[in-house]
Every structure is written in C-alpha cells, then in structure tokens.
C-alpha cells in the first residue's frame, strides 16, 4: 500500500481506526521512518491511540494526544503541539474520532490542509451494525466530509467479526468495500486481515485484492 507522508484516518465509531493507525505507525517505524502518530479523538473515552503511548514510544514513535486523553477527565482540549504536525518531516498518522462528531475537530485544521499532500482514509467494517450496508457507510462518509471540509482519498476495508472472522467474513467484507468503492469512486487501498489468518489462501481466492496483515492491539485480555 503506497500512502502519502501525511495520513488522516477517519471512519464510523468502532470501525477499527485506532488499531489500523497503530499498525500503520509500527510498520513505518520498522522500515526506519520517523513516525508521529496523533490521537485526535475528542469524543471517545476508552480504546484510543494514547492508551498505547508507552508501547509506541518504545518503538521510537512520537505520540501527540489531547491534553486529557487516557485520563479520568472528559475535557476535549488539544495541545499546541498538534499544530506542529503540519510542518513535520515525519511520517504523520492522524487517528481521528468516530463519525461526523469525531471528525468535527478536523474542521479547525482545514486551512492547514490547503497545499498539503495528504491521504485521508475512510475505514469501513461491514459488521458494525450502523454501517452494515454500503449506503449507510456512504452516509457516514458524507457526514464526515461535511464537518471536516475534507474528502477521503481512499478506503480501508477493515471488515471483521473479532475472533469469529473467517474466510467467509473476509469475502463478505470485500464485496461490501467494492460496493462502497463503486458508490464513491474511491480506491480500496487495502483489506486488512489479522496476521494469524491465511493470507496466502485469501490471496489465491482474491488475486486482485490488496491485503494488509495487521496485529490486534486494541483489545481486552479477558
């Protein structure tokens, strides 16, 4: 998957933006890139990028997060350092909050995007109940466009059913993402698959699909 050096990750609430963003950041860091990951989520109290700060920083990744992210407070305030990402030479990955509500914060930075070479990804999961049809997924995408003033440049198909994900689930997800691609004209940048699933088998079954193996970071251990 080829992406610009500035990647904004948006999507429906709970579609897997944070887990995807973390995987992306780790991949680029492993390749030797200097990476900055930005937790730009002002709406979600748990399961957010800044929860993984220690692990990310141990890999040399810089983490910029809301002042009170991952704390006991519910105060949506951004640090001044968030403005620095627009002048950064690093690989910048911005993990935005879910839905239009979570993407509203992007609107504040919209002038900064003018002239910036960026990718804005729209992450979809066929098995999230409020975006289980392509039409519903497009509706949320349009809402995100309206509040952010920005338009996605590609789709990430992150369809899964957690531990119950199998080849059948993956196949349904691919069909779903293709429909969204047709409706929006957006390219499917990748289809994520959990690293323990059979990538070779799936590649044989879907020879034209770009797969992106991911690890699960956002999860509970019991």
């Amino acid at each position, binding site marked *: 998957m080829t992406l610009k050096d500035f990647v904004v990750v948006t999507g429906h*609430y*709970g579609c897997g933006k944070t887990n995807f963003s973390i995987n992306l950041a780790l991949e680029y860091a492993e390749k030797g890139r200097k990476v900055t990951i930005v937790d730009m989520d002002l709406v*979600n*109290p*748990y*399961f957010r990028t800044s929860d993984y700060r220690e692990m990310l920083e141990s890999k040399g990744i810089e983490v910029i997060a809301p002042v009170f992210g991952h704390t*006991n*407070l*519910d105060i949506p305030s951004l640090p001044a350092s968030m403005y620095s990402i627009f002048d950064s030479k690093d690989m910048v990955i911005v993990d935005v909050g879910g839905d239009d*509500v979570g993407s509203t914060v992007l609107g504040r930075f919209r002038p900064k995007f003018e002239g910036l070479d960026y990718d804005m990804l729209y992450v979809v*999961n066929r*098995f*999230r*109940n*409020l975006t*289980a049809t392509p039409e519903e997924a497009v509706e949320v995408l349009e809402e995100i466009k309206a509040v952010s003033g920005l338009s996605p440049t590609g789709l990430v198909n992150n369809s*899964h*059913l*957690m531990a*119950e994900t199998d080849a059948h689930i993956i196949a349904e997800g691919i069909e779903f993402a293709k429909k969204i691609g047709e409706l929006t004209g957006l390219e499917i940048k990748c289809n994520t698959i959990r690293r323990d699933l059979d990538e070779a088998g799936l590649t044989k079954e879907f020879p034209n699909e770009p797969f992106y193996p991911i690890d699960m970071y956002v999860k*509970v*251990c*019991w």
Partner: protein
Amino acid sequence: MAEKVLMKGNEALGEAALRAGCRHFFGYPITPQTELSAYLSKKMPKCGGTFLQAESELAAINMVLGAGATGVRAMTSSSSPGISLKSEGISYIAGSDVPCVIINVQRGGPGLGSIQPSQADYWQATKATGHGDFQIFVLAPSTVQEMADFVALAFDTAEKYRVPAMILSDGMMGQMMEPVLFPEESEVKTIEKPWAACGHNNARPHNIVNSLYIEAKDLEKTVIERYERYEKIKANEQRAESYMTDDAEIVIVAYGASSRVSRSAVDMARAEGIKAGLIRPITLWPFPVDAIEKTVAGAKQFLAVEMSMGQMVDDVRLAVNGRKPVSFFGRTGGIIPTPAEVLGEIKKLAGKEA
C-alpha cells in the same frame, strides 16, 4: 437469517430497547454511557418513538415516571453521578409501582470521580437507589450479548412485578465491542396494565398513579403489599452462572466486567492445580443466595472480586452466614484488576504464595 454484528455494549442496550418495544427514552448525556443515547437519538425517530434529551437527569427520570404511568415501556440511562441525581425520581417511581428500565453504565466515584469503569454503585443499586422502603430489580450483564438480552428481561420483569428494573453495567462493558446476535423477529411480551393512567373515556373509574398516602396506615399497608411482591421476586427471579464450582474449594463471586477477569483467573488457577470456581451473580437484587448456598458445603473459602472497595462482599457474607471465611479483593477508582492479580489472591488463599 439473523446475522452477528459487532456492537459496543452501549449500542447493544439501545438496539435491545427498541426491540423490546421501548418507544419512550428520556436521557441526559454522560460518559461512558453516551453512545446509548446517541444510538437511540438516531434510531428512535425512525421507529416512530420519542427520544428526548431532557434538560437534566432529574427531568429525565420524572419523564420516565410520567410515561411509565401511562403503561408504555419507558427507559432512561446514565452513569454513576447521573444516577445519584435520578435517585429521588427512582424512589417516586418505586413508590408509584410504575415499571421502567434504568441503565447505569458505572464510572469511578465518589463525586465527579472518573470516566473510567467501576463497580462502586453496587450498594446504591441494591440497597438504596433512593429514600424509603423499596427495592428494584437489578441485572448485571457480563458480555455485550447479555447487554442485548437483558433489556427485554428487565422490561418483562419490571412489568410483571410493577417495579423499576436496573441494568447495572460499567464503562468497560459499555465501551467494549463484541459480536452480538439479535433474533430476526423480536417478540414483545405484552401484559394487561389495568392500573395505567392512559385515558378512561368515562368507561371506568380513573386510575391514580401516585406515591403520596394521606393516612399512615394506608402507606404502611401499601409498603407491606409491595414487600410481599419483593418476596416473590426473591423466590422466582434469582439468576446466577456457576463456573467450575462442582469441586471448587475456593469460590470466587464476581459480576459484570470483574467476573470476566475472575473467569480467566479461575482458568489459570485450575492450570496450576488449584480447585477454584466462579459464581457470577446475574441478578444483583435479588442476590442469588441459592447459587451460593449450593457451594457452601464443598467450599473452603469465598473470595469476592469487585471494581470497588468491597460492596457485594457484604451480600456474599450474608449468604454464607459465617459458615466459611469470605475475603475480598478489588481495585477501584477506574482501575480494572488483572487476571494475574486475582490469581495472586487465589494463591494466597490456597496457601501457595503468589
């Protein structure tokens, strides 16, 4: 064919409310339950129902009283500080014998406390959700599927006994995502509500839904009648899940999120040859004393595990009634204990140093 979807616990509660025939929701936003309100704000208008974001928690709970008094399925939801605000209204609802469902997605306390998960409202839910002599029916889900399944159960039980019902969840259960299966067609149980103030068209005497009694003897009579219903609930509605308790020497008692942690700890203990088991109360009131009773003879000791400083442990002690030692382990303030920590406690009790 019905298919599984991924839902956050809060969303599952919202969807389940619609499927249980709830068309009247009155709420006020608070983390970590807001997704429930957000879900219903999107979906309720599509079902022709009323979603109303009230001006405060007090207003919302009194709207539940008003709607419930007409016999419709009314619901409200909040998180810990918001439930405290609702407590006066809950007492009025209990005193008016109005069925309804109240959701508490608990967060850390006291006071403004924390937005992280907690189970420190056990006493509030089971002993004193408001002033006066009353109880409410309390369910504690431990999976997102149970979040979905328990809403209809809460409404059915509330209506059967004319009591408020609460789903006592926590921030972790509300925010975490799991696959959920809803039936293709959800059947709504309907029962006659001859008491409802829903318009009489001069065809019957008018119904009064009220918690004020002019004469002391009338109030006492009403409360005593209500407690007779509570006895029926205690006899008929206790629910618990027992896990590896048949030969358990150390019986953990835990509900909700901490029961998931405890189940992992029981598996780890068993792998080390320690005979541990778990009783998971599903109803917190009525407390499942019958499930505890079955294990008292075989158990050497009990361990209550909670995300609080120790609240349910009181009910475990009452059920065990001094026959075996009962100890407690918990984390509080928004911290979830780890399976390894619980295993450490099990090992201490088993006489094997952690």
